[in-house]
């Protein structure tokens, strides 16, 4: 049996760990709420922009700008979105696992020049470096809440690459926040722009259950007037200045920016949620450990006392 002092030390360190992980759990929970709130505050803009695109694409004379045009897919860019910091349970590894699975299923040779890889988050950069692929760009060290100016850099980089024909398709691997307890990895195609994919991304901003989930009901039942039948039929009356082409050309980068922003915010919220769960498990474990150790401590203390009494009585008998 271990010495009493040693057990005591172990109990106190387990208690310390428990305190720390509990604090981290609370911090992560607050951060999760905050990043959810940030994601939701941009929803109005997203819906307006979607409507706007829908209206414009209904115009017959509209010519799609290069960013919205589809072409034959030869080259693909992969964006792997992970966190900067660890201690988030299986958050990063599940993104990487999905990515690996996709590579195997589609028989992708990662060293082929037709594929580019972009890392978002320090962990993702480390992972891609370990795989020894050629990394086109790294976006890392962005803090807990990614700023619009930071996601804009990624959006611009992706759009530029698309326009200069570095890639014909962009796939994003990222965590999607479904509920506080459940996140899943989604593979989204953000370029070429598909209206349905765009719409889905925006719908997914609202979590399924828990706080903010009440908004999910509203967004299905209250579409703007222009998306109703009556609004559609009157679309021809629109006066578009200076021309639909120019407006669409201006709109396209904003759409991509918006989508990238949402994907990253979603990943942020998921990261905090995953960290909260990991920390909760850690503090539960620490608590259990403290209980077990206390039991051991008491048992050995009792054994020591019993031994001493035996020694004394034995000594008394000899006398």
């Amino acid at each position, binding site marked *: 049996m271990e010495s009493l002092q040693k057990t005591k030390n172990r109990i106190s360190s387990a208690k310390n760990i428990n305190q720390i992980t509990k604090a981290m759990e609370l911090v992560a929970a607050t951060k999760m709420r905050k990043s959810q709130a940030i994601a939701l*505050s*941009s929803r*109005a*803009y997203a819906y*307006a*922009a979607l*409507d*706007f695109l829908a*209206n*414009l694409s209904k115009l017959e004379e509209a010519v799609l700008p290069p960013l919205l045009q589809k072409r034959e897919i030869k080259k693909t860019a992969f964006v792997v979105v992970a966190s900067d910091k660890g201690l988030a349970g299986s958050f990063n590894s599940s993104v990487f696992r999905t990515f690996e699975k996709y590579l195997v299923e589609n028989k992708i040779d990662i060293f082929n020049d037709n594929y580019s890889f972009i890392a978002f988050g320090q962990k993702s950069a480390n992972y891609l470096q370990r795989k020894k692929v050629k990394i086109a760009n790294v976006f890392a060290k962005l803090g807990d809440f990614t700023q*619009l100016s930071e996601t804009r850099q990624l959006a611009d980089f992706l759009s530029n690459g698309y326009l200069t024909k570095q890639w014909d398709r962009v796939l994003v691997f990222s965590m999607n926040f479904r509920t506080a307890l459940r996140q899943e990895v989604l593979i989204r195609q953000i370029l070429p722009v598909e209206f349905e994919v765009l719409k889905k991304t925006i719908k997914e901003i609202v979590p399924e259950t828990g706080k903010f989930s009440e908004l999910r009901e509203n967004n299905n039942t209250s579409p*703007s*007037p*222009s998306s109703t039948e009556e*609004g559609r039929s*009157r679309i021809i*009356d*629109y*006066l*578009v*200045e*200076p021309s639909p082409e*120019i*407006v669409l050309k*201006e*709109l396209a980068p*904003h759409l991509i*920016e*918006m989508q990238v*922003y949402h994907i990253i915010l979603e990943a942020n919220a998921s990261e905090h949620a995953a960290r909260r769960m990991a920390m909760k498990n850690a503090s539960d474990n620490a608590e259990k450990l403290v209980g077990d150790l206390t039991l051991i401590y008491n048992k050995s203390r009792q054994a020591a006392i019993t031994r001493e009494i035996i020694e004394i009585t034995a000594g008394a008998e000899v006398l």
Partner: protein
Amino acid sequence: MKLSVYSLKKILYEGDAKSINCQTIGGEVTILDKHRPFVSTLKEGVIRILDGENKAHYVNAKSGFVEVMPTNEVRFIVEER
């Protein structure tokens, strides 16, 4: 007319408006009640909103879009400066 001004970060204005003045690519435009359906691209400038009580509100826009809907609703999506 009903007016909403959205940016990616927040809702900048939502409510009634009497007149809206903004800088579009084609030049300065003032939108009054019951304007015909209209779509345009904004250029850098200030959007001036006159609400129901004749109080002026200003929004600083870097770029953005304006849409006047047939239902007498106006919607701006802007990038803030």
